[in-house]
């Protein structure tokens, strides 16, 4: 991001409902999305980027 200091962590706080957390919990239970909600969020974000922004950083994710 333009103007960002490279040694400053780029942290975003995401406000979620208990119902959204419930969905993250399901992914956490799978084990391959991370062990903390923050990791699960980032994993999903990156998979979105791959699937919808045309990136190729990650392998395909099958439908559950």
């Amino acid at each position: 991001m333009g103007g960002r200091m490279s040694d400053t962590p780029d942290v975003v706080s995401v406000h979620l409902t208990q119902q959204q957390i419930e969905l993250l919990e399901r992914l956490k239970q799978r084990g391959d999305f991370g062990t903390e909600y923050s990791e699960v969020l980032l994993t999903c974000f990156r998979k979105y980027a791959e699937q919808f922004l045309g990136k190729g950083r990650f392998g395909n994710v099958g439908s559950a």
Partner: protein
Amino acid sequence: MTIPYGEIRDDFVLEPVSGKALPVYEGETLRIIQEVGGQCVDFNCFNLHDYKDYMSVGHMRRQGIRVVKGDYVLSAPPRSGLMMRIAEMAETCVTDLIGSRCSADLFEATWGFDSHTNCQDTLAESIGEYGLSPEDTHDSFNMWMNTGWDDRGRWDIRRNTGPKGDYVDLLALTDVLAVPIVCGSGDVTGISNFSLKPIRIQVYEKSAETESLVKEHLDRFGQLKGQRSPDQYRIKDIKVTRELTRDPAYEPQFVNYPLRFEDIEVELTEEDRRDLERLKAQVRVENDEDGIRYAVFTWYKANFSEPNPFANKSVRGD
């Protein structure tokens, strides 16, 4: 037909403009046929054993505003029942789940008619045989109704494309009171090519194959906790007075209320940041947080949604 039905147990013609309420039992199939061609058909549907459980065109629209072969006739929440399945439907049968049933006021206001055939009154007269009132009619599942809609929801009527002999088969997934009628607007609106024609109705008895198909559907889609029955309601009785009065002792029990929230912090890499900026350039999100929420739950829905007649069917199929 792709699956064998039982024997025909009923076969009659609905002359213009009339209708008929008729029981169709689980596993049976209702066939609606273009006797001449080019006739719009309106359809209502009730649970035969509980008239308060009836078809919800609004919820059927989750399948698309033009349902096709393989889609379902669904009842309204809190029941959310599987009522019928469109077992057969030719592509020449254009359906419409947006247009409301025509009514006497429409023809009076638009054309100055003191009396004109209309679907509200035809439905009401048809269901009266079962003790139901004009207020028990509901939005129609419209068949052979070739409408066009723009993004603002304004509509136009196009030529009816149903040829003689075209038919729609509705397989009953539960016992229903089916109400097919000849739409009464088509002589002046053009929805039936400026003429009113008969339709033929047939009912096929169940077969081993249709019974098996019904069981398959109910096993797969009839087991949701969200499909509730009156014994689960806080207020179980059907109100018998028309006047509304407040119950001062009533306390609503909203779902998951008060809702709890949690803030989760995520640390983005430089590549994540570039992706988030790309997303923000493509999607109208408010800020970084909104963008991440959008991405996460858009991705979740696209990849973890079970195909189900009660779920929204989007353009992407998720």
